[in-house]
């Protein structure tokens, strides 16, 4: 089972990296202009192309890059001359922390909101929460981010507007620097999760075993939290895994907006500067992360719903 998944991971990686390699190289714009500037001579550009193997056919370059990947060498950035693996390792903790914090905030808010809405389905609270959820869903993160900065940094001055403090320097400052970005990123996800949980909970609460539990005199709170929530969480768990892709996309905007030195910003900057190898390294990192997280989600299914384990 695990071996099969690993094989799948390898196939996904091959397809994704090849496609991204081809697409990147189809982008108009010459990396040598980005590296050497506008005033570089044609000779200097040609020499640099040869040094970077940009004069080689695409497939040869891809295979060479793949060979490096097997030995753990992701190449060296065209622009900064820093090894790509090193650049990614420097940025990864920021993005990871942002993703984890955003998911925790999203789930931490979505579960009580979803439960409350399901419990009072169709009533005023449900309608208010539903409206707020749709409002959050339809608000772009860059708008939400600017509004949150305005409120919490500019007006109330209780959180920093931008910037990043690594955990290694100061945990407290680190948490304050990640809070606004994580809330901004997590709010949209929270709305999705809350809507999913509400819908599934309403369906579960109409199941026969819930009616039986009610007939046995169990309290509504106990029924909801002990007997209905777990089987209703399958869609939620699936969404948490699948939404990782959306979250990673969101980090690109959030990291730029809040000045966070994460992987998303590195990839975007590298696309604009035609730093192909850094983008490729980022693509590998994200692909592996995405597949592994969804693999973990599959394992969590069994824990959430024992019927899956026995199936």
């Amino acid at each position, binding site marked *: 089972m695990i071996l099969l998944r690993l094989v799948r991971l390898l196939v996904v990686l091959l397809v994704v990296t090849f496609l991204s390699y081809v697409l990147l190289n189809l982008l108009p*714009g010459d990396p040598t202009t980005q590296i050497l500037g506008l005033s570089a*001579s044609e000779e200097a550009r040609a020499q640099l192309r040869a040094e970077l193997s940009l004069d080689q056919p695409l497939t040869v370059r891809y295979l060479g890059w793949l060979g490096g990947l097997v030995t753990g060498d992701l190449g060296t950035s065209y*622009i900064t001359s820093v090894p790509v693996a090193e650049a990614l390792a420097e940025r990864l903790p920021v993005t990871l922390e942002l993703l984890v914090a955003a998911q925790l905030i999203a789930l931490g808010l979505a579960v009580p909101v979803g439960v409350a809405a399901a419990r009072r389905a169709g009533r005023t609270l449900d309608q208010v929460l539903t409206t707020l959820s749709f409002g*959050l869903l339809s608000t772009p993160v860059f708008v939400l981010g600017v509004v949150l900065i305005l409120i919490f940094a500019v007006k109330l*001055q209780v959180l920093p507007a*931008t*910037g990043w403090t690594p955990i290694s320097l100061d945990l407290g400052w680190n948490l304050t620097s990640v809070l606004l970005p994580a809330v901004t990123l997590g709010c949209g996800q929270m709305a999705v999760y809350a809507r999913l949980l509400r819908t599934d909970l309403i369906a579960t609460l109409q199941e026969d075993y819930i009616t039986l539990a009610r007939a046995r005199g169990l309290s509504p709170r106990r029924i909801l939290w002990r007997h209905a929530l777990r089987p209703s969480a399958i869609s939620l768990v699936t969404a948490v895994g699948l939404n990782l892709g959306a979250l990673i996309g969101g980090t690109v905007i959030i990291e730029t907006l809040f000045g966070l030195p994460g992987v998303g910003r590195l990839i975007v900057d590298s696309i604009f500067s035609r730093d192909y190898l850094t983008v490729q390294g980022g693509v590998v990192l994200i692909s592996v992360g995405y597949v592994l997280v969804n693999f973990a989600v599959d394992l969590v299914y069994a824990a959430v719903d024992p019927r899956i384990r026995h199936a």
Partner: protein
Amino acid sequence: MKRLTFSTAWLASLTLALTPVLAACSGERPTAPSDKAPAATGASPVRGGRLVYGLSADAAGFNPVTDQFATTSYSMAGTIIETLVGVDADGGWQPVLARSLTPNTNADEWTIKVRPGITFSTGEPLDGRTVKANLDAQKASPLTSTALTPVDSFELIDPMTVKVKLKGPWVAYPYHLATQIGMMVPPSALADPKAASRKPVGTGPFLFKEYTPGSRMVVTRNPGYWRKGLPYLDEVEFRILPDSQTRAQTLEAGGIDAMGTSRDDDITKFGALKDAYTIRRTTGMAVPEYMFMLNTAAPPFDDLRLRRALAYATDRKAVISTLRGGLTEEADGPWSKDSKWYAPGGDYPAYDLAKAKALIREVEAEKGEITFEVITPPDPNTMQGIELAQDMWRKAGVEVRIKQVDQADLVNRAVTGDFQATVWTQFSMPDPDGEYVWMHQNYAMPVGSISLNFSRLKDSRLSQALDSGRSNPQDDIRKDAYATVQQRLRELVPYVFVDHLNTGAVIAKTKVRGVGDYLLPDGEAGVPLTGAPIPSHPFSQIWVGNP
């Protein structure tokens, strides 16, 4: 967002945790007097304190030999690495690490005498050998070798003197030594360029402390700095904040003390808060021009009538009032009116819709319907400008397609001539000779080849004038030459000039003093701000006082 609920205690603890962020920069009186006090600040500088400065972009690296420098690179690396030459407030060049630069009669040889008694922070001395090694490295670097094409060789004359032999007269050569080409790093940095790229070393007022790519760079006072009494600040932290709006919000929130900007919104907003913020805007030659660059080597703009028609159809006043809040000035050439190089004349086509329509009808009668494509980066501000221009040109009878391309693609198209018209911002060098390669016909190549003269305009009179400005040391002859350059540009319209984009600015809290006010080593006031679109400036004479 209202869903976010914080307990009072949590908020209180958070506020306490943030106290250091909101704390003001503190300072103390200097223990030693400075050699020269900045002229324009009107108060005694205070030594000490910390400045947090917001930048719009990170640097690609800090090695002036191997890394391409943008204005943000100059802000960061310029605190550590100094140049042989600086530019004064009048636009002239002045020695910095050089004690003097002297041309021969023909200006085809320059003798650089190195200022004595200067050492790098590594302990290595700055001498003629090191200067020659740096200049040789720059000449060999693919980044800068084209700019140094007129240089033949460098020769060590004595331990503190280097002679520069040129292939022809070049009176503006010293200006190039005020850029990354003239930045001096120690021999150890030349020997290990990768280390120098990440941890810059130099003779400058600050020492490298730490750098987190994409996030921040911190520099601390260099206690052994050769200019006694400087710098005033103990430490400078540069924060990389690429989003202009959140950068401004961070300044408002107290997260940074100063920032660079090119947004007229920021100038208007912070300008209204005079008690809290000061604004320093670019002036003179440092101001770039916003324009539409036309490809004169390809249809339809290989026809002068159409180029002039487009200029006639462009209502510069409307662009300035609609998009710039009235902050900028109309441009009719590459140099602004407050520069000593500006010269009128040449009949630039001022807005006249009737003339535009007549010219277009005349061309269409010969060649059929005129349509063209204008390329632009996809940012909203630029798109507003393009759409406004598109509307103006349509009124004149030309159908215009807008194509969005990213910056790298746009630059590539400009270099290879794969465009008809493009949005463009350029011309902010301190001396007109800095624009030589972009306008001279020798640098205009056919479409498909790499051309530094992007508009590909070939005009012998313009090129002769550029040659004259490059080779004649007399100021009046140079002024005449550059008057001809401006006249030809107005007549031939390779660029539809819109405005002098003087919205490049540094906005600082009022406690931050001396932004753009500094003296060069021999006492002349330096040029306040340089570079575009967001300018840079030295940090050695900035200080923080009471708000």
